[in-house]
């Protein structure tokens, strides 16, 4: 992994509609090419954290941000989302709200068109993302006829035409079925593996988080409580559960076996569990 991509230091944030701080002194760093998954119960501040990194809070969403937040050396709180063109792209949880255009091509061309790039560059970027994510089969379709997973894939592709260095995913699979989740998960893995994107994701689904994350961060009540690589973090089952995060099924089973006196390591992924138990 490369240099520093995202740096937050002693970050506080709140929305204008409330006097309570949603983030309370968050400090973290994300390196280039790293995938960080932020977990925690609803209302713990996961999405707020992403909105700040995306430059949306306080620029689009009224609120107050205190502390240091920078992406690629740019002061996000000062420059806002307009200062992050080509650096940060964000995908939200509801695929229905993110597919706006009347055709898949128009949807993909939207960001570079909005940025006023020359026509040939818009076309070149659309062709790149179509090839990169194998979207050719969707081009002739009406975006409204796509499944939830396909719409979310389209939303990710649309953001990628911005050529961001950092991709933010705000619970991208929370509204998707199993098939849709798999589609999005495969895409994220591809982006990480082939294109070395820095990815920050807020996520509830622990099984997919441990599949793709380099590092997991557990938040509770606006603070970072735990942080570490998936294997290390979920070996602390009790601690993780204390902060409202359910460990992966494989870890839970191993933890219960341990409590019953069986000497076993705690795997986090199903494939690790199968290997550990010789299955």
């Amino acid at each position: 992994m490369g240099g520093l991509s995202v740096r937050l230091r002693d970050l506080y944030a709140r929305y204008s509609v409330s006097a309570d701080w949603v983030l309370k002194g968050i400090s973290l760093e994300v390196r280039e090419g790293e995938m960080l998954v932020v977990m925690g119960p609803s209302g713990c501040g996961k999405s707020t954290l992403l909105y700040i990194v995306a430059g949306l809070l306080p620029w689009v969403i009224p609120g107050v941000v205190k502390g240091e937040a920078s992406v690629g050396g740019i002061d996000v709180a000062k420059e806002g989302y307009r200062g992050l063109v080509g650096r940060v792209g964000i995908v939200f949880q509801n695929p229905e709200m993110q597919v706006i255009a009347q055709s898949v091509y128009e949807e993909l061309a939207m960001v570079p068109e909005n940025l006023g790039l020359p026509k040939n560059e818009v076309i070149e970027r659309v062709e790149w993302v179509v090839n990169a994510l194998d979207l050719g089969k969707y081009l002739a379709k009406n975006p409204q006829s796509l499944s939830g997973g396909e719409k979310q894939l389209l939303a990710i592709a649309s953001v990628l035409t911005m050529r961001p260095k950092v991709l933010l995913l705000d619970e991208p699979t929370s509204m998707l079925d199993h098939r849709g989740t798999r589609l999005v998960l495969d895409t994220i893995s591809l982006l990480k593996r082939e294109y070395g994107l820095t990815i920050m994701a807020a996520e509830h689904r622990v099984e997919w988080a441990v599949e793709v994350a380099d590092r997991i961060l557990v938040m509770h009540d606006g603070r970072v409580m735990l942080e570490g690589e998936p294997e290390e973090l979920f070996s602390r089952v009790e601690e993780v559960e204390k902060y409202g995060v359910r460990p992966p099924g494989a870890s839970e089973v191993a933890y219960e076996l341990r409590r019953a006196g069986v000497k076993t390591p705690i795997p986090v992924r199903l494939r690790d569990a199968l290997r550990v138990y010789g299955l």
Partner: protein
Amino acid sequence: MLTGLYVPKDTLFHRLDPRVKLLWTFLVLVASIATQFNCIKGAPVFLSVVVALALSGIGAGFAALLIFNMSAFLIAVILVWAGMYSSHGVPVLELGVFRLTDVGVSVALGKFFLIICPVLAFAVFFTSTKPYHVMWTLDKLGLPHKLSLAFTISLSMLPSIVKSTREVIEVQKTRGLALDRGWPLERLRKHIPIIVPLIARLLSDVWDLSMVLASRYAGYGRRTYVFEPKWSRGDSAFLLLSLLFYGGVALWGVFPYA
């Protein structure tokens, strides 16, 4: 989400340059204003718009809805305007205090055409033009891009609003809300459980949409359009014919003895 009023078809109107269609719409508006006091002079404008409606290939359901609303509006207009002109001209119908004269009918129909023709013309424009090209047209006309964007998005959200309204009504009906029972005032009061959640839902949708649009840099500056319509000979011919036809009708309307 932003499907707009656009109906995908391959018709004469769909193939026309959006600028020509918009100019045609304004010509309809001008001709309707010029002929508003005489239904005979306004009739060619109305007929031309009905023909355009058929040529734009909009769905039968949408056409039926337009026609139904038109007839309800026609009755309302006749009652108001014919009543105002009841002392002018020759009576054609007298029902108690209600007196319908030939002048009253002519003015009422003229006023009806004045409202309905531009409405139908704009319906033709929006059903045959993609929101993408509506925005392009407004940009080309020199409107600030943010305004073009705001206008296009608000217009494009209309079907979503209708869909949301239907969904909220269905949900409230399953909870026992009976909108078709009771006195008019009671029926009106029964709409409160629809309006409140509908507004809450629309606000939430608009909020989500604004986040998506901001993160996609909508309204960032001068926009590029990959799909730009090209002005063809057909466009020029259509515009010329429209100018001659509506210009002629407008002159006929402005000069009483023309």
